[in-house]
């Protein structure tokens, strides 16, 4: 009997930017109901990996598959199954939060009634009702991140791609974000990048460590948070402190 394909598969993906190899032969997979943390130092290739998954960048080699289908074969349909929130949340500062969500729904081709329903659902889910009529340009960073998440969830994607979701948030906002992401996990796969090892330990089921554009570590985290504590930090430090040639 054939096994069910993973929700997301990266198969030997490589990418150069400005002539410099950013990703080299990166392969990993993600299944439904799983939160995968992508770790790495600055310049390790985390954001590039996520941009490739979101379809914003094209890999030079290798493929990205959603449920076993190459995203380039049916880009429009498969992209509708992905929700992406980049590190600096792209918002239209002149539009209100409600208008912004409506605009995203329009871009996704949702009909008017579906847009209204989806906007109301996300405004409620991410507790944005109080600021629905505020201009996006006037929001705090935490609020912007919530709006970005709402935009990404509007079309109910199977795969959520979050680039540094906790970056710049205060501890209270970061804890709230962790709680929200935890609630989003059922029925979808989530991949997020972070510098914050504690955040990854708290939220993720599995971790992939990228260093110098290559996957250096790909393993499930211990089931209990107490058992995880400190282990990831030690593994991460050991990997990023090794010279590239040794790590390879």
């Amino acid at each position, binding site marked *: 009997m054939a096994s069910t394909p993973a929700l997301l598969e990266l198969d030997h993906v490589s*990418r150069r*930017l*400005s002539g410099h190899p950013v990703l080299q032969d990166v392969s990993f997979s993600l299944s439904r109901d799983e939160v995968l943390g992508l770790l790495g130092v600055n310049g390790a290739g985390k954001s*590039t990996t996520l*941009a490739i998954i*979101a*379809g*914003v*960048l*094209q890999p030079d080699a290798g493929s990205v598959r959603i449920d076993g289908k190459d995203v380039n074969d049916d*880009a*429009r349909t498969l*992209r*509708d199954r*992905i929700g*992406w929130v*980049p590190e*600096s*949340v*792209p*918002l*239209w500062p*002149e*539009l209100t939060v409600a*208008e912004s969500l409506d*605009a*995203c729904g*329009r*871009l*996704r*081709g949702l009909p008017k009634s579906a847009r209204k329903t989806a906007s109301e659902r996300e405004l409620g889910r991410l507790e944005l009702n109080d600021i629905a009529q505020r201009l996006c340009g006037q929001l705090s960073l935490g609020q912007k991140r919530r709006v970005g998440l709402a*935009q990404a969830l509007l079309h109910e994607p199977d795969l959520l791609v979050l680039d540094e979701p906790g970056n710049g948030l205060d501890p209270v906002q970061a804890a709230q974000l962790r709680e929200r992401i935890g609630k989003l996990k059922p029925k979808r796969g989530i991949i997020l990048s972070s510098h914050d090892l504690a955040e990854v330990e708290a939220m993720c089921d599995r971790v992939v460590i990228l260093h110098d554009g290559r996957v250096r570590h790909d393993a499930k985290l211990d089931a209990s948070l107490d058992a995880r504590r400190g282990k990831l930090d030690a593994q991460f430090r050991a990997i990023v402190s090794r010279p590239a040639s040794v790590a390879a």
Partner: protein
Amino acid sequence: MSALAVARIDLKRLAVRPFAWTLAGIALAMMAWQFLLGVSAFIHAQPTVPGPASGPGYVDAVVAPYLLNYIQLCLVIAPLITMQALAGDRGAQRLALLAASGASGAQIVFGKFAARLVFLWLLLIIVATMPLVLGGATHPDWGQFGAALIASALCVAALTAIGIACSAFTSEPALAATAALLIGEGLSLIDAGVRISGGEGGWLGYFALHTHLEPAMRGLMRSEDIVYFLIVVALALALAIRRVGAERERG
């Protein structure tokens, strides 16, 4: 669908931007002043003794120079209104958001172009309303009026497309505006030297905006002029689409 969605988002953004309103206000104030000057000169040039009309009519003396003045103004307005279109969105990751939403390079460019064109055409309609209100009193040549208006609309489309193309090639809106202004002024002045010395523009003249606007301002709508403006629009938008489409490869 996506091109329409992009256009609607950008029109909404333009409608709430103080910059767009300020630009429109200044442009309309300048055009109103130009119109009053034109009408005043036209009234003073009228013969005091009644007789058969022989001099230039209302469209020749007032409307054509007035619409040419709007084109001159658009050489500045079009770069200013288009500079943020792609350059600003690229810097703020909004271009990536549009791409991640499934919009193709062509849909993004067409949407952005359409939104700016609607804005500048609305301005043109308001500008054209001023001479129209005197239509009943001056018996204008409506055919000439229409030709001048169509040529102006096509020229505005060409300048908008040039602005969009310049915006596609940089992340700095000011750089995009400067490039579009230089290209627009270049097309406007390319045959100026030859014209001033009284010669024919030749092949250089074919590239000049002036060559393709003047016949229409006299009431002559030539297909070669329409083709010229359409080629400029198509070429500029094709370059912009190519650049935006290559974003996924370039990073």
